[in-house]
């Protein structure tokens, strides 16, 4: 891949940032502004909120975060595999199948141990 081809990626990144900035700028220019205390309150589906929006969250979320990181690491192995998969044929397919089955054992373990349950 030529280095110049990456300019497309750079162009898309710049255009994406500009679009986001533009939509914010349009709102900033066109919308009327008013300030009153209720407006600064945390939105809690219409009821009066209890406490701050920035609260300490339950430790159980951490497990989901860790499982997410492990499967993200798995994806970095899928990436080179997906590029050369067609050239290497069946052998590569079964190699990846073994790789994924081993990781699915981990997911099965998590499921069996109730790590995915919210009790």
């Amino acid at each position, binding site marked *: 891949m030529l280095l110049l081809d990456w300019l497309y990626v750079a162009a898309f990144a710049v255009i994406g940032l500009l679009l986001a900035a533009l939509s914010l700028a349009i709102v900033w220019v066109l919308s009327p502004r008013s300030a009153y205390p209720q407006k600064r309150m945390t939105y809690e589906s219409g009821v009066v909120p209890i406490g701050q929006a920035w609260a300490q969250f339950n430790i159980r979320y951490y497990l989901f975060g*860790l499982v997410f990181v492990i499967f993200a690491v798995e*994806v970095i192995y899928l990436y080179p595999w997906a*590029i*050369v998969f067609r050239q290497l044929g069946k052998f590569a397919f079964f*190699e990846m199948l073994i790789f994924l089955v*081993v990781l699915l054992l*981990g997911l099965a*373990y998590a499921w069996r141990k109730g790590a995915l349950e919210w009790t």
Partner: protein
Amino acid sequence: MGTLAAFFILSAVTLIPAVVVVTSKNIVRSALALVPTFFGITGLYILLRAEFVAGIQVLIYAGAITVLILFVIMLTEGGTGIRIRQVNEQVPVGALASAVLAALLIWVFLRTPWPQGPGALPEYTAAQIGTTLLSSMVLVFEVTSLVLLISLIGAIIIARRER
């Protein structure tokens, strides 16, 4: 010429949010400022023709690691919502130490003869890595899945003990 311009732009994209990371009084803002830093480093990897490392940088660092850092902040008592001061009274000493370290690194970089390996880079490094990983390094590849499995089980065991 274009590469040099890209290098300077990407360095700015990396360094400006990095300054926000270490100076912001809002710790969530510090964590989120890591994302453009990681993207800038991704661009630098692409300039070095290391597309695979760049892909890892986006997937793991800009994606997973940032999420993990945000999780840790949200799970910490008083982690969010407070204003913190990231520096103490020793700012001048720290600035001097980092300036000396930077000068030393630049000096070493300029003096070291960098050897160049024989042969040319493959046209697309990720494809070459994939071929190697799935042919001659297949045992390493399969053992990696075991390492990931062990870390998954370890994470579950440690997280469940907390209750």
